[in-house]
Each structure stands twice: as structure tokens, then as C-alpha cells.
């Protein structure tokens, strides 16, 4: 007799209740995420808005908030991080966009291996790559201790460029060629063709590339720490620092700011790009 799970056999409620259903498979997954994603974030939020008394118990307070906004150093770090995040995103896009366009242009390149070569550094341990970048920069005389901003920027661009090229490339190969040609045939010059046809079509790629660069840059720890020889503190470093000095309330509050920024950028980008492959490393495999 045919027996589909939509029409369970009428053999007692208990058995039916425990009968295998495909949706039950989601339960361990959800439980795991709830335990190790939601609960930890909830704890962080609790710490962000409490103070710790001498015996270790928590009480509600805005001390962490006040201490953050009254500390010029911390606010300064936030501003510098935002600035470097934007700068890195812009530089990566300025280099990555034309490269992705050329890679996807059949008249220039038909070799997929070349695309893979751009993505390949992602598979080499990034701490090792960062160290290599610093050593080579030192060799060339760009010492992090002397030029912390320059060295850090080079390191950031080096690290995030592959992450920009990949989503841009995936968008570029899907560009509507006939629309571009139509624009040309109807008399648009190359500049007009670019701004009126190519650029609007590639917005989703730009958005996902920016998403992959901006927030990770702000919260990066190893790159700025290594390349500036500890001279440049980004938001990631200062959160790390606060926690390693057991200042949990202050650190949690900054993690809360980070979460807030992520939520804002998500809300902004969700409006622009209808979220196409915006995951880290999507299309990588």
C-alpha cells in the first residue's frame, strides 16, 4: 500500500507523532545554532548594558555606553575604522571592477584558469599571506612602524581584492550583452554605455563585493596588527584588547556597536541589491 508522509497510517497517535518526518531533521540544526549563536549574542547584549560589581554579580547600567562615548580614543578608533573600511572598499572596487569586467569579456579572456588564479590566494592561509606581505613591504622599505596607514592599506587591499573580484565576476558574466550592444547601436558613446547600461546591471555585484569588504575590514584584527606593527588600532583590535583585559562590559558594548553597524549595512544593502550571492565565498566552490 502506498503510504506517503502526508497521509500517515492511522495506527495510534503516539506512533504517528514519532513517525519520521523530514522536517524533524531541522531540529538539531536549529538547536545548535540557538545554543551557540543566539544565546552567546544574548549574553553579549546583557553584558553591554550592565556593570560588574566586585563580587562578580551584574547590575543594569549604561556605564559601558558612557565610557565608550566619553573616551576620545575609542570614538576615534571607530571613526578611523569606518574611514579605512570605506577607503578599502572603494580601492578594491576600483581595481576589482575593471578586472572582473575584463575577465568576463569574451573578447579579452576565455580562460577560466585566469579567474581561478585571482581567487586562489583565498585558499592560502591568510595569516601567512599577511606575514608575507609585511615581510616584502619591510624589504621594500615600507616599514609598518613608520608608515602604519600605508602598510595597513596595502595589506587590506591585498587581502580583500579576491573577495571583490569573485562576486563582480559572477555578475559580469551574466550581463545582458544585447542591451549593451543595443545601447551602442542606438548611438551611446562608451561612457554613456557604461553609466546607463553596464553599471546599473552590475549593481548587485558591487553591493555584494562591498559587503564582503567593508564590515570585515572594520573588524579585522590580524592585518592591521601585523602590518602597522601594532601602531594602528581598528575596531576589531580594540574589542579584542578590551576582552583580553577582562573589560567585558566595555568590550561587549563595542561588540554591540559592531552588531548595530552590521544591521544597518544589511538594511541598506537589502534595499539596493536584491541579495544575490551575497554570502562570503559564495560561488567559491
Amino acid at each position, binding site marked *: 500500500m*502506498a*503510504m*506517503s*508522509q502526508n497521509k500517515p497510517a492511522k495506527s495510534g497517535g503516539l506512533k504517528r507523532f514519532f513517525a*519520521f*518526518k*523530514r*522536517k524533524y*531533521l*531541522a531540529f*538539531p*540544526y*536549529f538547536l545548535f*545554532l*540557538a545554543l*551557540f*549563536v*543566539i*544565546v*552567546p*549574542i544574548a*549574553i*553579549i547584549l546583557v553584558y553591554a548594558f550592565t556593570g560588574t560589581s566586585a563580587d562578580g554579580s551584574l547590575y543594569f547600567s549604561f556605564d559601558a555606553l558612557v565610557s565608550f562615548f566619553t573616551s576620545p580614543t575609542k570614538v576615534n578608533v571607530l571613526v578611523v575604522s569606518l574611514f579605512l573600511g570605506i577607503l578599502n572598499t572603494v580601492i578594491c572596487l576600483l581595481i576589482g571592477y575593471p*578586472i572582473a569586467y*575584463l575577465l568576463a569579456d569574451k*573578447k*579579452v*579572456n576565455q580562460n*577560466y584558469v*585566469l579567474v*581561478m*588564479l*585571482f581567487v586562489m*590566494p583565498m*585558499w*592560502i*592561509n591568510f*595569516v*601567512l599571506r599577511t*606575514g*608575507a606581505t609585511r*615581510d*616584502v613591504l*619591510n*624589504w621594500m622599505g615600507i616599514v609598518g612602524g613608520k608608515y602604519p596607514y600605508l602598510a595597513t592599506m596595502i595589506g587590506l587591499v*591585498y587581502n580583500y581584492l579576491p573577495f571583490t573580484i569573485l562576486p563582480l565576476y559572477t555578475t559580469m558574466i551574466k550581463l545582458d550583452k544585447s542591451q549593451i550592444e543595443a545601447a551602442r547601436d542606438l548611438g551611446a558613446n562608451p561612457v554613456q554605455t557604461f553609466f546607463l547600461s553596464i553599471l546599473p546591471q552590475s549593481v548587485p555585484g558591487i553591493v555584494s563585493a562591498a559587503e564582503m569588504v567593508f*564590515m*570585515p575590514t572594520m*573588524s579585522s*584584527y590580524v592585518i592591521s*596588527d*601585523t602590518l602597522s606593527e601594532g601602531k594602528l588600532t581598528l575596531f*576589531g583590535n580594540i*574589542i*579584542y584588547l578590551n576582552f583580553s583585559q577582562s573589560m567585558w562590559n566595555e568590550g561587549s558594548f563595542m*561588540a554591540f556597536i*559592531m552588531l548595530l553597524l*552590521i544591521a544597518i549595512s544589511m538594511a541598506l544593502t537589502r534595499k539596493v541589491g536584491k541579495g544575490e550571492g551575497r554570502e562570503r*565565498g559564495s560561488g567559491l*566552490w
Partner: protein
Amino acid sequence: MVSEMDVFQRNERILKRNRIIHKILGQAAIWLVLVLMYIPIGVLIVYSFSANDVIGGEVFNFSFIQYSRLFTDAEIMTALGNTLILALASSALSTILGTAGAIGAFYSKRRARSVIENVTQIPVVNAEIVIALSLTVMFVFVGTYIFAGANLFSFWTLLIGHMILSLPFVYLSVKPKLIQMDPALYEAALDLGCTPNQALWKTTMPEIAPGILSGFMLSITLSLDDFIVSAFTRGAGLLSGDKTIDTLSTLVQAKIKKGPIPPAMRALTTIIFIVVLLIVIGMTVYRNVMAKRVKKRAGREAK
């Protein structure tokens, strides 16, 4: 007088020349950026064949000593072993849990599914440092208040950390395959007498296998590349024994904080590079073969 034919031919020639110039300039730009991108790794690879302790220097001193140093360096070998065990274990577990989650969510009611999807997005968009810190704070919290001051940090906490990194990506790789799947297949298997369990293994699993594989590979990549989560959630265990677990990332970070990359690690970079290169070539070949097969099949069906 110039005939129309000549004008046509000349125009053709100019167009062709423009096309060639376009191609050459394009290729030049691509290769320029590519070469710049590979300078740091390239320098390390070149100097992995030098006996010099630092890169540069007047004499190159060609030798394979860095390679023999690498394989006798207990610290690096332990870290390498830890990294591989951790990557395989966390990826395997994430793949099982994530695949089950994706299947389960796909057949859940819309409300439940959207809750699961939203929770899945959190670690994807969250900053790695916030993931790492929130987990650490929770482990300390649980250790202090529930396990009476016990130190929970061990291989298991590290494993959980890495699973959280990769789990959502397994889910997101499997999901599109489930959407593409023909829902009639499962029903047909049931009608032909399979139990729900058999139907799942015989119809659903083969259909979503490519998604599972890419989820697994992505998990491995994320685990191998991670520093922040490892640095925070690790404890003693694995090949490090009673000492704090070092992964490749944490070991390299500790070294480069003090000075240049240790010479033996240059040899390691070369080996990693070659392995990655082989995988990339293999994948490209596989991709081309698959594409050809699909084309052939499409051609046959068209006939």
C-alpha cells in the same frame, strides 16, 4: 579613386586591429594586477629555496634546507596536524548537521522555515570577532556559573567555534539544490514502496549531493583560514597534548608578531601553494568535462 570594396576592407582591418589592441590591453591589465597580487607569496616561494634566514640579502644561497627544517620542526608539524584534524572534523560534522537542517527546513512550514533562515543568516553577516567573543563569553559564563568554575576551553569548544563558522554555509549550499529538485521523485519513491527513510537516501540525497560537496569544501576552506575564532575558543588538547592547541593560523600569528616569517614556513607556503594549485587545476578540468558532458547530453536530447 577608392572603390567601395577597398573602404569595406579597410574598415574590416581597422576593426580587427582594434579588437586585437583591445585584447592585448585587457590581458596586460589582468596580468599586471595578477603579478602584483602574487608578489608576497611569490617572494616567499622563491626564498623557500634559499638558506638565508631573512628574505633578501646579497647572496641567494640556494638550498633545500628550509624543507628539511620544515619536516623536522615539531611545532609546525603539530600545528599542521591540529589544523587538518580540526578542519576535517568540523567540516564533516557541519556538513551532516547543515544538510539535515537544510532538508528539514525545506519541508517545514513557512513560518518555521523563515525563523531557521534568519538564524542561519546571523553568523554569515556577523563579524568574526563578535562570533568569537560571544562564544568565548558564553563558555566562560557557563563554566563559571553552571560547571562551578570549570575551564571549558578545549578541543570541543574550538570544534564548536569552527562549526558555527561553516554550518550556515553548508545550509546555504544545499538549499538551492533542494529547490531545484523535482519534488515528484520523493513521492514516487514512496509510492513504489520505499519507507520515508529509504526515499530520502535514494532520491533526495543523490540530487543534493553536489550542494553537500560544495558545502563541505567551503567548510574546509573557512576552517583552514580562520584565526580569530581559533585564537579565542581554543584550549588544551589534540596533538598539542596538555598545551593550548595551536593551529597553523595561531602559530603563524604568534611568530610574525615577534619577527619575520620563520624560514621553514616559507617552505610550507610553497607546499600549500602547490597543493592549492593542483586542486584548482583539477577543479577546472572537472568543470570543463562536466560542461562538455552537459552540452553533449543537451545536443542528444535536441536530436
